[in-house]
């Protein structure tokens, strides 16, 4: 069995070859197949310049010689093999390294600005080029999570959640570089570890160590909500001076038995939360009830949802990234496990424009770029960090970010051509 019948196809119109079965050596690897395709394309278009391709056999990336791959996948070698090829994702190139004063706990970037939360009790706003624009100081304790809410022209709304049990809603004018704390969201009795805004930017959800999720309004107003103060009010006043107007939650979702480690507003009225009680719960925000509970066996650190493939990705303390289908009712069905990390997976993020790719960060100092079609090994290991990685993000523009305990925020430029092809 030295030759195999293979038919090549692609969805990328630029690199289409004739739909003819070819006889390829069984021992050929990705490089050999790439040569074949490039030769074919050169024969077709004289102007073709060499392109690196990756090959998929039945939805799985080819990483070994073709015969070995088919043997492990149990594909018959008698028939014509359908091999899909895509342009190879080039390695993300590290772009900027933004030094912080302390550990970086969280990062969120939009098309223009990067917002990072740090253990030095501040959040920072950076330009995409790595210039520090603004320091958001106001919390009395470590900033655990940050989120952009909305941008109206030059005015942006942003959120910072902290160990001091509050979430602050800030208004930032990028032109004048003026920052104003609009609201102080009080109500949690533990450190607020995760926040997430809804797609419209009118509400946000927070998850806390006190096992609660709270839904808040993200619309800044001019009046403070009424809060019943404890009896010893003067003492408390002394301790922390109020920043912005107090805001109370619209709704409290309780049901987790342990600390909530990650929340996610995945649909207009749907909130997902991961907890240390080994469950991921999907909540109906309207009704305030649990829609689905996905039960795992280990503590969940982070979740991410991709509307493209409608999958939840979770990172947990047993080093695995698991993919879930949140629509299954009370199912604990793991669709796929991505295993390569050697430490807790602390952050996971789907590619905003690619249905198969996600990035993950772990306590083993590595950031990994994954393709779900190759679950055994990641596409790339980004070994820039020297200490634990706590947060990763991935912007629409193809920028990947990761921050960790080495006080550095790395940005990686991700090949733009890929986004076209993948989506």
């Amino acid at each position: 069995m030295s030759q195999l019948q293979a038919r090549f196809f692609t969805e990328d119109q630029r690199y289409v070859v004739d739909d003819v079965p070819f006889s390829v050596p069984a021992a050929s690897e990705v490089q050999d197949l790439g040569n074949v395709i490039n030769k074919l394309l050169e024969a077709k278009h004289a102007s073709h310049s060499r392109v690196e391709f990756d090959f998929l056999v039945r939805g799985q990336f080819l990483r070994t010689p073709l015969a070995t791959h088919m043997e492990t996948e149990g594909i018959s070698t008698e028939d014509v093999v359908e091999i899909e090829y895509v342009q190879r994702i080039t390695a993300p190139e590290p772009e900027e390294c933004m030094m912080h004063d302390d550990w970086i706990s969280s990062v969120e970037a939009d098309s223009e600005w990067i917002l990072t939360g740090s253990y030095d009790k501040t959040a920072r706003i950076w330009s995409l080029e790595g210039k520090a624009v603004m320091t958001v100081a106001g919390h009395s304790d470590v900033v655990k999570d940050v989120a952009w809410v909305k941008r109206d022209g030059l005015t942006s709304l942003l959120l910072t959640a902290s160990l001091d049990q509050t979430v602050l809603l800030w208004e930032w004018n990028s032109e004048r570089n003026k920052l104003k704390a609009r609201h102080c969201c009080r109500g949690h009795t533990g450190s607020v570890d995760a926040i997430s805004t809804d797609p419209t930017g009118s509400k946000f959800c927070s998850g806390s160590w006190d096992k609660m999720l709270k839904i808040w309004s993200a619309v800044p107003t001019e009046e403070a909500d009424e809060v019943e103060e404890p009896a010893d009010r003067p003492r408390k006043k002394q301790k922390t001076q109020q920043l912005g107007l107090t805001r109370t939650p619209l709704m409290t979702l309780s049901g987790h038995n342990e600390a909530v480690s990650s929340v996610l507003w995945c649909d207009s009225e749907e909130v997902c939360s991961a907890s240390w009680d080994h469950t991921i719960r999907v909540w109906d925000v309207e009704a305030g009830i649990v829609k689905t509970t996905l039960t795992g066996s280990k503590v969940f650190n982070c979740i991410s949802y991709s509307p493209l493939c409608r999958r939840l990705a979770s990172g947990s303390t047993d080093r695995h990234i698991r993919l879930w289908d949140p629509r299954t009712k009370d199912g604990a069905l793991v669709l796929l496990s991505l295993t390569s990390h050697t430490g807790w997976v602390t952050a996971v993020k789907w590619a905003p424009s690619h249905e198969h790719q996600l990035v993950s960060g772990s306590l083993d100092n590595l950031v990994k770029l994954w393709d779900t079609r190759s679950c055994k090994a990641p596409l790339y290991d980004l070994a820039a960090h020297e200490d634990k990685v706590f947060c990763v993000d991935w912007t629409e523009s193809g920028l990947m970010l990761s921050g960790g305990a080495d006080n550095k925020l790395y940005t990686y430029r991700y090949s733009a051509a890929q986004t076209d092809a993948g989506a």
Partner: protein
Amino acid sequence: MEASRRNVQSAGQRVGMKKTEKTDKKRSKPDEEEEEDQLFDLNNKAVEEDEDDKDLSDSEDSVYSGLEDSGSDSEDDDDDEVVEEEEEEEEEEKDGSNANEDEEEHSEQSTVKKSKKKEGAVVEKEMKKDDEYDHDTSDEEDIRNTVGNIPMEWYKDFPHVGYDLDGKKIFKPIRNKDELDDFLEKMENPDYWKTVHDKKTASDIVLSDEQIELVKRLQRGQFGDVNFNEYEPTVEFFSKDVMIHPVTNRPADKRSFIPSLIEKEKVSKLVHAIKMGWIKPRRVEDDSRGRFYDLWASESSSSLAKHKMHLPAPKIPLPGHEESYNPPPEYMFTDEERALWEQQDPSDRRLPFVPRKYPGLRQVPAFSRFIHERFERCLDLYLCPRQRKMRVNVNPEDLIPKLPKPKDLQPFPTTQSLVYRGHSGLVRSISVSPSGQWLVSGSDDGSVRLWEVCSSRCMKTVQVGGAVKSVAWNPNPSLCLVAVAVDSVVLILSPALADKQVVSSSERVLTAKEEEEGPSEGSQPVVWSETEGEELNQGIRLKIQHPKPVHQVTWHSKGDYLASVMPEHSSHLQVFIHQLSRRRSQNPFRRNKGLVQAVAFHPIRPYFFVATQRSVRIYNLVKQEMTKKLQANSKWISSIAVHSGGDHVICGSYDCKLSWFDLDLSTKPYKMLRHHKKAVRSVAYHRGYPLFASASDDGSVIVCHGTVYNDLLQNPLIVPVKVLRGHAITHDLGVLDVTFHPTQPWVFSSGADATIRLFT
């Protein structure tokens, strides 16, 4: 055939005896000899009867007796042959016809004999007549002389030798031959050598050449007839092939088809007799009495039983190739083997001798150890064990208790996840907040650090100015307080790492009882004091001054009571129980019952565990009496932990043991675990999961699964599930403290390498 002939001969002899009433010496000779003699008769007689001839020759007339013996058979001719041969032609002719008839009736061998006789007759005939075959017969009586078969010496003194058929005397020839004549004849007569003397006729006969030739042939054992082929091929009438014709053509008898009536009668008689019981078919011979007897009939059953348990003497193994005088080369010792053999103790040697090679069996010397070996053999026989050893074949694997797979006992910590770095000295003690979010550690570098569990971030460092011996987080979730033992002071720390409500309530607890402080003071050995300034800013709220260095602090589960341990041999002030809300301290024990190593509160009941070096005493704090004393079976208890249910206690000891007690069961440890190589420093129980862990100086933490079933009949399942390594051994100290996460199956360990590690 020979036998029959002999009979016939003897019969003939008898006849002869009757006739002559005298026995010839020749007759008594064995027949074989006789046979031979007969062959030579012609020659011998000539010589032998010379004397006779002298006498016989005296009478000229030879008389024929015509009388024939009627009783004589043709066989008698054998004996009378010589005589007969000298009969006259007429008779011979007659005889010949008879002889021919006779020949046909005789069997092969006799035919041979007859042919000899015939030859003899031929000789005679040729001498006398040409047509001898007309009448010559060897069967006929020699009728030339009718005296018959008598010794001829009887006629020695007569001039005749007998009578012819007509009754006339047959006279001997006139003999004038004396010795000289004889000699002269011998010298002169060329035919002397072939001249024979016939006694019966007393005449000399010169043998012809044919006769001589015949004699020679017979002497050689050949047939007289030259033309006779004795080796003619036999015609086989019977062969292996099945022939179409039977050997005999005789039809089968009728009787062979018909059952025999006589036999039938006999059988029916037998059957009738058997039926009537007159005869017994196949009577078994009864040997029970008489011929044989039971030698051991009188033996008791016990002695018989002994025989059943007979043990054969140990057998000598058969000699192998090594014992050979010429062993194959692979059995010969190499130099190393020989050296080893010489070094070894005789009892350890594989062989009791050295194989040696000799060129031949004859070269083998006497076996020098023979006596020795015999003696050993006798010893073997004498010392052969008299009792049967009941050997039970037990697979050692079966003796190992069936342990469940660790996989089935999950969850338990398996891998190191986080390392909390920051201390510069060995970390003596760690404690986790009741929520599981924070971890406090006390180190020899004089600091107490507060860590965020999930990120290994050190949130706060409190300098306490001395080596921290013990830290304990208040187990009450509504309070956020840490007790720290530094030297002889117990500090109450408020880390302010909790909800404001909790922080404020703990503040309240700390400050509430200021008014009552006054009266409780006095001659107390323990002094409570509040802190100020720098210490207050760090969060240290209260100081409890003890008279001696405090080694351990531990909280009651309600969080109000605090126990501290000051081990000292000579004092009864070893344990203090402090009440935080009232700022009171008391010493519960009046007497010193031994060096107190560790104390613990019962999580539910008002019991107090005090571990001394060898035992654990359980006191009822309400009744103020000792309820139980657990014997740890170890030399020096280092630590104690109580299960959250309060029914089980584990004790670690410096002699590497971990004892597991079931308080309902016994005061002895239910199980002793000796998995550690070095002293066990600390033990811990998980609050929710059935896990306990032990930390040791060998740098490892061993996590054990310990399930106690509600069914009392089922034994508790205590299985070590994981050895966790990670801590480096520094100054011969490994892991100093171990504690579980309150909610997750995670275990923290602090080591002498100044790190704290989290295993998940």
